């Protein structure tokens, strides 16, 4: 630990602390553009200039002590940058002296020489560092009368990122991000002096799966998301802390929504999961919530057609149909995209119906070694823990598919999955005497359902999930579900109650508490104890090693799924 004097007060910081971080921890925020705590510091923006001093050494090379018993500080005559400096013993810092303020004003003036005054059309307005710091540290007027330098505008850097070079303040955060985090070194500066501009390497594009993070870290509006560009001003967005459900990593996110429409997803810092980043695939994977084929009304089969009905009728009809079929003739296909609470209720439902065949659909696609996981189900670990099957999730799937094909199964409940992806044909589905579907989007399979229960997407519900590394995290509701769609857990609870059971489950917190009674890892936890950053509840070694034959079955199920998807995409 080092003693450091910041603005006249002595603090203690561990060795290796960046001076700029130390100042922030001490409550003296130092403005910065190029410095980002997860990236290297090139020290090129000069905004974080501070006055610094080292302890005055006596003749015997020991620090001279002042009247207060603390070292006397020898102040350096010139300002230093605080982002490229670590703390050391007896160091002194002044973050708001007249010299520092003069420096900040000067740097701001230089940065604004060529910056266009187009805040009314700039998407960064409202969360722009240049705007904020120019109010806090700059002057209100420009002294420059000369014409501003013209640079390329509206440059398409890649499929998802658009660049406005005039707004760029050359902080190089995006360049360093691509080099250090995304390992895809495509950005760089060309030309000299006032004409320096950011550009992609000739013949290359910024198209890696992490490109949109450069938009997040850009302190100004130079890099903009092509998807979000000009759609909505940021100050209108209601921000909800949630997690991404596109793969098992479970990146922490902020969902920006206004009036029940989601406009963007941005990563939220969590050093245990995703640092400050998230992949473009997960970030943009929310438009399906507004899809044309969204299910919005509960439906029951009348003759050959599905007819909209009310929730009570739909639930009663579903339970009636399922109970008419014996428990041994029912199978439940659940989903690894369901929350722990939904999976637990599914298990209760299965137990009270006497169902033995229950499994989730595995989803495997190539991952990268940054954030994107091979397992594209966000809650495989939750299914493992809660469904308590001895086999790996997905190993029973082929058995279920075979049983449906052979006609041995007469009742099928499908929760958030498409059974046709498992090789079950449309004719076999229409043979079933009970085919209950709970999903958010309609498909060929839902057309054949006897009861359709419209549910909520990830941004429309609360719940918890366990990510690939065993961390329990929370989903929060950002928008309301469309039409008459309901929370999945409520639908399952109502089904359970109609079968007989599911008493005193009035809120999702009750469900969570009941999980804690049966699953030891959940004991003592509540939604508020999970917090925004999640809790580690599973050491990954605790998981049983996958049985080789399970592995084969899962591989096969995934292969069938992939084939079905390929056929479908060829058809469309």
């Amino acid at each position, binding site marked *: 630990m080092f003693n450091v004097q910041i603005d006249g007060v002595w603090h203690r910081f561990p060795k290796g602390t960046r001076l700029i971080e130390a100042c922030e921890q001490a409550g003296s925020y130092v403005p910065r553009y190029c410095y980002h705590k997860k990236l290297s510091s090139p020290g090129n923006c000069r905004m974080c200039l501070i006055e610094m001093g080292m302890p005055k050494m006596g003749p015997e090379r020991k620090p001279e002590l002042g009247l207060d018993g603390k070292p006397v500080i020898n102040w350096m005559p010139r300002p230093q940058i605080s982002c490229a400096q670590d703390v050391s013993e007896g160091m002194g810092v002044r973050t708001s002296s007249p010299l520092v303020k003069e420096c900040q004003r000067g740097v701001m003036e230089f940065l604004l020489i060529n910056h*266009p*005054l187009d*805040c*009314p*059309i700039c998407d960064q*307005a409202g969360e722009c560092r240049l705007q904020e710091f120019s109010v806090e540290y700059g002057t209100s007027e420009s002294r420059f009368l000369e*014409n*501003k330098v013209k640079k390329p*505008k*509206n440059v398409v850097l890649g499929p998802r990122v658009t660049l406005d070079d005039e707004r760029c303040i050359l902080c190089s955060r995006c360049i360093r991000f691509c080099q250090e985090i995304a390992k895809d070194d495509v950005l760089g500066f060309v030309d000299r002096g006032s004409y320096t501009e950011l550009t992609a390497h000739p013949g290359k594009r910024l198209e890696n799966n992490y490109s949109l993070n450069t938009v997040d870290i850009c302190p100004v509006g130079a890099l903009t998301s092509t998807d979000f*560009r*000009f*759609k*909505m*001003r940021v*100050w*209108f967005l209601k921000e909800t802390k949630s997690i991404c459900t596109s793969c098992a990593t479970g990146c922490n996110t902020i969902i920006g929504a206004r009036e029940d429409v989601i406009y963007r997803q941005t990563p939220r810092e969590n050093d245990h999961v995703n640092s400050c980043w998230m992949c473009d695939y997960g970030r943009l994977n929310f438009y399906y919530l507004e899809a044309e084929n969204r299910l919005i009304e509960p439906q029951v089969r009348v003759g050959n057609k599905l007819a909209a009905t009310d929730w009570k009728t739909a639930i009663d009809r579903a339970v009636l149909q399922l109970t008419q079929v014996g428990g041994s003739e029912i199978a439940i296909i659940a989903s690894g995209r369901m929350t722990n609470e939904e999976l637990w209720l599914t298990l209760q439902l299965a137990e009270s119906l006497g169902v033995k065949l229950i499994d989730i659909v595995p989803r495997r696609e190539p991952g990268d070694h940054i954030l994107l996981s091979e397992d594209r189900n966000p809650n495989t670990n939750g299914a493992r823990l809660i469904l308590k099957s001895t086999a790996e999730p997905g190993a029973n799937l082929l058995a279920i598919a075979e049983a449906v094909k052979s006609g041995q199964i007469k009742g099928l409940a499908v929760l958030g999955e498409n059974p046709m992806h498992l090789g079950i044909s449309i004719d076999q589905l229409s043979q079933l005497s009970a085919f209950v579907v709970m999903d958010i989007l309609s498909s060929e399979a839902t057309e054949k359902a006897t009861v359709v229960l419209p549910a909520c997407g990830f941004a429309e519900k609360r719940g918890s999930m366990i990510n690939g590394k065993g961390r329990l995290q929370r989903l929060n509701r950002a928008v309301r579900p469309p039409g008459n769609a309901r929370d999945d857990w409520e639908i399952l609870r109502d089904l359970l109650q109609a079968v007989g059971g599911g008493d005193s489950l009035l809120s999702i917190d009750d469900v969570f508490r009941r999980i804690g009674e049966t699953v030891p890892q959940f004991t003592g936890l509540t939604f508020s104890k999970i917090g925004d950053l999640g809790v580690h509840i599973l050491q990954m070694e605790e998981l049983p090693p996958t049985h080789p034959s399970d592995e084969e079955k899962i591989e096969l199920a995934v292969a069938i799924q992939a084939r079905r998807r390929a056929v479908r995409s060829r058809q469309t």
Partner: protein
Amino acid sequence: MAVTVPRPKLNWRERMYLPAIVAGLAITLKHFKNMLLGRTKVTMQYPEEKWDSSLPDHYRGAPALVRDSDGRVRCVACQLCEFICPPRAIKIIPGEIPSTDRFAKVEKYPEEFDIDMIRCIFCGMCEEVCPEQAIYLRKDYAITGFTRADMVHHKEKLLEIGGVMHGVVLKWNEKK
């Protein structure tokens, strides 16, 4: 904070109240005389007669969008008026100006701009907040309609009321 207003100390003349009563009566008599001579006019025969010509410059009527002398709709859909509007009467859907357009540099324009005149309270905040000098409160005050939908001013209607504004800053020219 409560402020205690000191009661004025009245002298004996003021305590009698007679001079004040006489002064009041004098005003009444003056009005009476003016009326007899036909000099005062209390009622304006609206709508046959209108006071449009004597409206003061600072009169706050219906808000409207203006074009500048280049014929460009000045609004760039920054949505600050939508944000500031106290009764939330304004709704804007922004769009992107195609790169082939004459004013492609401006990049953004309002695809839709609706002001619900049932909600509008004519406060003038939108005019005050506008960084582009694009929205002005004009002198139109007779805003009527048969349905709620009639009372929503769409972009075309707003531009029609607004007309062309001369003498405003042209900040989107090539030099800036």
